[in-house]
């Protein structure tokens, strides 16, 4: 692995100048479809301005393309290092395309440091960029342990794949055909019959402005430094004196976006016939360079001349090689601890390919006052499970290999299992953070009706006077797409479900459970000075009650008795929790 700094990028020549004044220092998203980028199957491939569903396969062929392959052939590229501050952190609440994901993505939006702004694209800062100029870092939930997820305000260093998000061309403005200028277009075929019956032969689409987003997707090495809080010097998260807790996760195994098989551009027919699962072609070898990053420190106490205290804890999975971490205090106006995870050195002859670390750093004898709090989450109350009355596709039973065989009444051949396909989809998936410390709420896999699921989650928090307590949930009510299609190829989907039921399952996306995002400021941080209990309902989201039969919960009109409509109210759950000052 050759990790490059932004300044050394060959694509520096691509920087936009003048055309988009407001974004003069960022990379032009139109380069995603330039002939140079598309050489050897690289780059992105847009679709017609009026595509059918089948046409959308083009957008995932591949779904992510390297911005710059350098000296490599696509899909290979050299990793880049990006630095920034986390602006938001959540799961992809609406679901990802399942054919190239093993699980949903965790999405971390970072406000990129000015020195790294060349990684940001015009699409990120355009009106199509809901990222408001930031850049998204995505890694599959199943390949990203919770201890290393970040929260708002945390510092971020990531090494990984700098890509165009090819699934979202976001042409704005659309182009016009070269002669028939009243005809809008995205690609040249929009300027010919039958899309444009009046167009002249040979017309091309001109002036289209694509707004592909650039992303770090996936990062294979992540360091998240939690600043402005207090932490104990321990492997487990707990409050303590002012300190910075940095959590590190390194792994080449990052799901679909890191696998060469899924990232290789091919024929559309190949998309439906190629079997990439189980994924066995990771794009990177994480052991070819060390992972380096700086850890910010809390404000230095007046008169303190000692170097900081630094403790390193290993979080690697059992049995994995545990590489050393060197830490060096770099004094100055903004002192930091420079950390290096020694990935290039083998450990007892073994490569360190799956690494977790936690580093806690703070000033010795720092007596700056902090408020210690405990947040106890006692229950989640499901007010509306957000389940359709009629499943997207009826329940069917098929053998795992002999997929044409119905196993509802006849046993499968030896060695095969009988799969349940379609039918009702129970379950919610909810992740909850307190200031960037994430937990997945257990016990939600069977949610199918209104219920209260007890929880025993506690957060131990320490906040300085100017700090705040941020509680935030990110989740979804699972539907057919999440529960059935992830981690398997389109070829497998077609074999199991067929085209019609496969499309119906794909269209049955997870439901929005509404937002839970509250912040408590000092001096009591929601504790009332002692202990305060809350039952906070989510706001917005899907679901409601039928217009007349108001006892009937619904997702859409079809869930209601004849003639009634579903009146969407959102607010599908309440979280019960207590904030206690310790």
């Amino acid at each position, binding site marked *: 692995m050759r990790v490059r700094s932004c300044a050394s990028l060959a694509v520096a020549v691509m920087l936009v100048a003048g055309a988009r004044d407001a974004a003069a220092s960022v990379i032009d998203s139109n380069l995603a479809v330039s002939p140079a980028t598309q050489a050897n199957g690289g780059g992105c491939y847009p679709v017609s301005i009026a*595509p*059918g569903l089948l046409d959308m396969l083009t957008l995932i062929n591949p779904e992510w393309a390297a911005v710059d392959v350098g000296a490599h052939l696509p899909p290979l590229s050299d990793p880049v290092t990006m630095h920034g501050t986390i602006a938001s952190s959540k799961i992809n609440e609406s679901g990802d395309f399942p054919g190239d994901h093993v699980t949903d993505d965790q999405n971390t939006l970072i406000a990129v440091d000015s020195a790294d702004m060349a990684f940001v694209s015009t699409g990120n800062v355009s009106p199509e960029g809901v990222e408001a100029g930031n850049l998204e870092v995505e890694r599959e939930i199943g390949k990203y342990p919770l201890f290393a997820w970040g929260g708002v305000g945390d510092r971020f260093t990531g090494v990984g794949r700098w890509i165009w998000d090819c699934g979202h061309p976001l042409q704005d403005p659309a182009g016009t055909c070269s002669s028939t200028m009243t005809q809008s277009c995205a690609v040249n075929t929009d300027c010919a019959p039958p899309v444009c019956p009046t167009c002249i032969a040979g017309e091309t689409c001109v002036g289209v402005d694509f707004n592909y987003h650039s992303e770090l997707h996936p990062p294979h090495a992540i360091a998240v430094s939690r600043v402005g809080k207090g932490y104990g010097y321990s492997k487990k998260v707990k409050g303590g004196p002012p300190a910075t807790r940095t959590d590190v996760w390194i792994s080449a195994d990052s799901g679909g976006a890191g696998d060469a098989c899924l990232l290789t551009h091919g024929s559309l027919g190949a998309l439906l016939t190629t079997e990439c699962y189980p994924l066995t072609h990771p794009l990177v070898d994480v052991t070819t360079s060390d992972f380096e990053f700086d850890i910010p420190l809390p404000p230095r106490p007046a008169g303190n001349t000692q170097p900081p205290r630094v403790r390193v804890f290993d979080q690697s999975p059992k049995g994995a090689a545990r590489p050393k971490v060197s830490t060096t205090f770099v004094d100055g106006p903004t002192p930091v601890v420079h950390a290096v995870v020694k990935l290039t050195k083998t450990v007892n002859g073994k490569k360190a390919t799956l690494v977790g670390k936690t580093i806690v750093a703070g000033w010795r004898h720092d007596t700056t006052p902090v408020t210690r709090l405990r947040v106890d989450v006692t229950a989640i109350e499901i007010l509306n499970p957000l389940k359709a009355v009629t499943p997207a596709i009826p329940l069917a039973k098929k053998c795992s290999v002999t997929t044409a065989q119905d196993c509802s009444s006849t046993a499968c051949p030896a060695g095969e299992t009988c799969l349940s396909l379609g039918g009702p989809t129970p379950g919610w998936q909810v992740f909850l953070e307190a200031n960037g410390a994430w937990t997945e709420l257990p016990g939600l896999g069977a949610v199918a009706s209104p219920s209260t699921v007890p929880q025993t989650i506690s957060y131990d928090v320490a906040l300085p006077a100017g700090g705040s307590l941020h509680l935030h949930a990110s989740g979804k009510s699972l539907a057919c797409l999440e529960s059935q299609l992830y981690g398997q190829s389109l070829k497998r989907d077609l074999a199991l479900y*067929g085209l019609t039921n496969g499309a119906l399952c794909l269209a049955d996306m997870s439901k929005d459970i509404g937002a839970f995002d509250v912040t408590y400021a000092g001096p009591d941080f929601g504790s009332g000075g002692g202990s305060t209990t809350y039952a906070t309902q989510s706001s917005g989201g899907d679901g409601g009650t039928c217009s007349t039969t108001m006892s009937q919960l619904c997702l859409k009109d079809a869930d209601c008795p004849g003639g009634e409509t579903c009146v969407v109210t959102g607010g599908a759950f309440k979280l019960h929790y207590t904030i206690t000052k310790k």
Partner: protein
Amino acid sequence: MRLSHFVIGLALLTVAGRAGAVTVGDVLASPETYDGKTLSLTGTIESALPVGAESGYNLRDGAARVTVVSRTAPPPVGTQVTVTGTVHAFEGGDDPEDKPFPPFVVETGRTP
């Protein structure tokens, strides 16, 4: 009659009046309006994709086209057909990861 009732009544009359003449363009322009509804759409077959005994094909009506999935083989490319089927729209949102998938139709009948 309250103004809101009048407006709703007018809208219903408008939809009812167009019930037999919804076009592919109408569906694409407002997928959520037609989501779950059974309609008849007329157009020309293009880019058919047989998948086992099933098929997918694009139904074109002027500049607009919609994908139809069928539990049977596709009609010949280039033929004009009227397809009866149920519209399915993808839910969208303001998340950058939301896929901008267009609606599709699950065929329940076809003429010729």
